[in-house]
């Protein structure tokens, strides 16, 4: 029952955040720069949370998430720009096709483990990127020009849905099955859990939301090119998840926010930007290898804890 209480708390909090931000945007208090930054942050959170489900919850070491972002971005761009269908439909279709791509990628590769899985997922993402590169219909290297349709409202709704779905999934027997796979695949199997099914499922759900993020992404930035979805992009998403703390959803959210803001802030110092960014990365990992939040959630911090067991 406590779960459902936090569910409503979350919804109310989300509504409040939305109303406040919307008010500030409407009143011009938040200018286009900040509202755009908010949208970018929200998209990054969606990406982080979707990968969190795959890596943090299910323990599948996927480092090719940008591939699904690309699928979502391109599919949705095709839907609005070529088929001239509504934006919302485009975003949803982007997610659905990305989820399909997730299935296609996941079924053969999720038999692999650890680093082998990592390199295979990275390979798949590269294959997707190279394919886009070679398809003239979507503009090849030059990319596709996309109308600006992404709004704060749509992005925020998508963000809330993503977090809700993934939290609800995680806090259910299905999510527990995924965690069991992460903790010990052999034992999970022996407990009657169809491990392949759950791995692929988590992968597909993760890809779905990456695809949603893709739709929002492409309609926020005027042009998409295959080059934007290389492995460095995948690493960026991976970094959100790991830096936040593997297994902690709020951790991924926090680190997605922090890193997006830091990165935006550093853009004006081009000479040292990447040096600072990489130093932050290395130093955080050296001094907090478990990530900012470890496996805990922010909500845990507020819970009264019996005196037992420190951190």
């Amino acid at each position, binding site marked *: *029952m406590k779960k*459902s209480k936090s*569910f409503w708390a979350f919804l109310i909090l989300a509504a409040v955040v939305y109303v406040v931000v919307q008010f500030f945007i409407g009143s011009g208090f938040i200018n286009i720069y900040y509202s755009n930054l908010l949208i970018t942050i929200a998209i990054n959170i969606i990406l982080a949370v979707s990968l969190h489900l795959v890596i943090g919850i299910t323990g599948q070491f996927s480092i090719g998430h940008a591939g699904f972002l690309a699928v979502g971005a391109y599919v949705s761009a095709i839907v609005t720009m070529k088929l001239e269908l509504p934006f919302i439909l485009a975003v949803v279709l982007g997610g659905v096709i990305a989820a399909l791509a997730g299935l296609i990628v996941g079924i053969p590769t999720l038999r692999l483990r650890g680093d082998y899985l990592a390199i295979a997922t990275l390979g798949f993402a590269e294959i997707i990127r190279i394919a886009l590169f070679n398809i003239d219909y979507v503009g090849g290297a030059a990319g596709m020009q996309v109308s600006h349709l992404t709004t704060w409202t749509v992005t925020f709704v998508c963000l809330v849905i993503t977090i809700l*779905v993934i939290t*609800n*999934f995680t*806090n*259910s*027997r*299905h*999510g*527990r*099955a995924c*965690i*069991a796979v*992460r*903790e*010990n695949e*052999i*034992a*999970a*199997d*022996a*407990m*009657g*859990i*169809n*491990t392949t099914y759950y791995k692929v*499922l988590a992968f597909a759900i993760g890809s779905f939301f990456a695809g949603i993020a893709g739709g929002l992404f492409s309609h926020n930035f005027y042009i998409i090119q295959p080059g934007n979805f290389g492995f460095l992009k995948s690493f960026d998403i991976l970094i959100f998840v790991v830096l936040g703390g593997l*297994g902690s959803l709020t951790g991924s959210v926090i680190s997605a926010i922090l890193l997006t803001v830091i990165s935006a802030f550093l853009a004006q110092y081009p000479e040292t930007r990447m040096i600072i960014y990489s130093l932050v990365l290395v130093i955080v990992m050296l001094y907090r290898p478990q990530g900012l939040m470890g*496996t805990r959630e922010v909500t845990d911090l507020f819970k009264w804890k019996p005196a037992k*067991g420190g951190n």
Partner: protein
Amino acid sequence: MALLEVKNAGIQFGGLKAVSGFNMRLNQGELVGLIGPNGAGKTTSFNLLTGVYVPTEGEIIFNGKRLNGLPPYKVTQSGISRTFQNIRLFSELSVLDNVKVAYHSLAKNSILSSIFRLPSHFSEEKNMEDKALEFLKIFKLERFKDEKAKNLPYGQQRRLEIARALAAGPKLLLLDEPAAGMNPQETHELMELIAFIREQFDLTILLIEHDMQLVMGICERIYVLDHGQLIAEGTPEVIRSHPKVIEAYLGEEVSDEHA
């Protein structure tokens, strides 16, 4: 009718015949031991029974159903569950959640019901929680229920693993060296626990163990493997004095050593 029937089962790894021509019959409600020297193929035969390995020969019939080639999770769902020689708990999960996981395949609510938080989600979750707590009580683990499994003392971890295996609702329970790393006193308590759960849950139990006190003390029948082959089968008395078993496994003076 036998609950489990293994006919001529075997498996080969490369050139090595880890188990071959293995025959076994377990009747409903029996408590049977499986012993043999290290590397004899005991754990491997458990792996054959539970679908971790697919037998390269022979067949396994459980409850009238052929198990060959079924993946482990289906074997578990059809009523065989196990513990592992090297403990395999979900170490980051709480003790309670460890047991809840085992209920997974007994619950019915769909993914969508969980995502949309439909009533069936709540009722199934509640049901799982209640049952899991019941189990923890039986195993005297309820005071640890929110502790991470990895923080439990070793002996409790072994118990939790058995609790978890039971929660999956098996008819046949396979225990792989449940007493390993326990001192004689703890082993003794474990024996009582095994006897108790057999009664309570109407189980059939097959266990691997090197601790002869335990094996001889509670098993009704014993199978002995050596080099992947069955060398003896019978009651503890028969096994204790079986020359082949003494030669391969027990060593000379075991019969006159009393604890």
